[in-house]
């Protein structure tokens, strides 16, 4: 089964047009030079995929890594099933 990180990388690749191999856990959306509107679309696609709401008032969101995004998704999934 695909891990959360796999799914997040797949969404980033699909929305940004990058190759999956270019994206890893330590990549930040800023390093990947993702355009600002693609960033919004990535956030939305992740929310839809995992049925969560990501915090949007965090100015670090764009500079945070894929791994920190995965950690936030895991935290919210765990909180829902608790």
């Amino acid at each position, binding site marked *: 089964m695909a891990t959360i990180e796999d799914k997040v990388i797949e969404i980033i690749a699909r929305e940004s047009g990058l190759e999956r191999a270019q994206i890893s856990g330590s990549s930040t959306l800023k390093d990947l030079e993702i355009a600002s509107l693609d960033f919004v679309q990535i956030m939305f696609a992740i929310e*839809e995929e995992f049925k969560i709401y990501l915090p*949007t008032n965090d100015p670090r969101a764009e500079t945070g890594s894929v791994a920190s995004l995965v950690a936030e998704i895991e935290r919210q999934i765990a909180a829902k099933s608790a």
Partner: protein
Amino acid sequence: MDPASRHRLDALASRIGGRCEGDGSIEVDRPCEPADAGSASDLPLLFSADAVSELRSAAPRAALTVEGLVLPAGRFAGLIRVARPRHALARLLPLFLPVRKAQPGVHATAIVDPSARIAADASIGPFVQIGADVEIGAGCILDGNVTIGEGSRLGPDCRLHAGVRLGPGTRLGARVILHFNVSLGADGFSYATPEPGSVETLTAGSRVQARNQAIERIPSLGRVAIGDDVEIGANSAVDRGTIGDTLIQRGTKIDDLVMIGHNCRIGEDCLIAGQVGIAGSCQIGNRVVLGGQVGIADHLVIGDDAVVMAASGVGRDVAPGMVVGGTPAVPRHQFFEQLLGLARLKRMAEEIRGLGERLAGLERGKGRPED
């Protein structure tokens, strides 16, 4: 090929701030897209792995590329590597511009007022009209069908492409470039009514309170003044001031089809993209960037270094250094929250309906007498 545009690789590298690898003595005469490269003296621009894959010919011996990009080993005998490709292009491409041989002097079909003072080496093209008391500086080139209103002053080395119109009293600094059909110094969009009009009397609610009657025009006595090294794109218009001048200061670059209203003051080194519209009396700071199709309402102040995202509608002042987007424009992170909020609405509505159904179920259960 003009020998002036043949360059040794090592000499080119140093002129564009790049680093030469391999054989620096290779001579190149044409920078080109990778797919177009076909001769030994072509210089394909390879700024990405995709660009490398577009190369078709093995003929080019040298390439311009970016630091860190891996190229097939042994493919090129010489390379120039640069850190900032677009900046390198700004340095590189002028070296390959065809040399324009403007004929000094005034074309026989030009109509020049006898009181105009035109530098001896300036070039005035066919069907140009030059009004009274105009001054045209050294090295200026005016292509065909340019109109220069009376009392205008052009600094040295200005380049006015065909169809440019300058209203009376326009001031151009040095090295100003005006592309086809630029219009500087048309009257401002400036009118008044004797009684308060529909917009002035807007209060609460959505009904107009007054009618606009007897609209009177306010003439424009001011001028347009353009600083050194400003460039304005085709079909852009800058209106003259009502009493003072509409100003565009040194180094600002303006794209095609931009409208700048009367009495605006645009700072230094701004970048203003296509189809921007700036209403009257705005003050735009230094180094401001306005994306394509940005609209700015009248009398606003946009602070130094601000960036307005494309297609935004600015309805209030923007503080220095802010990035704003949307209509009405808000700080960028807030704009993104709005976009995300809009995208979330469908799921949120479904969730609220689900909650409502569950709540109704709970309340029905609560109201039932216990067994």
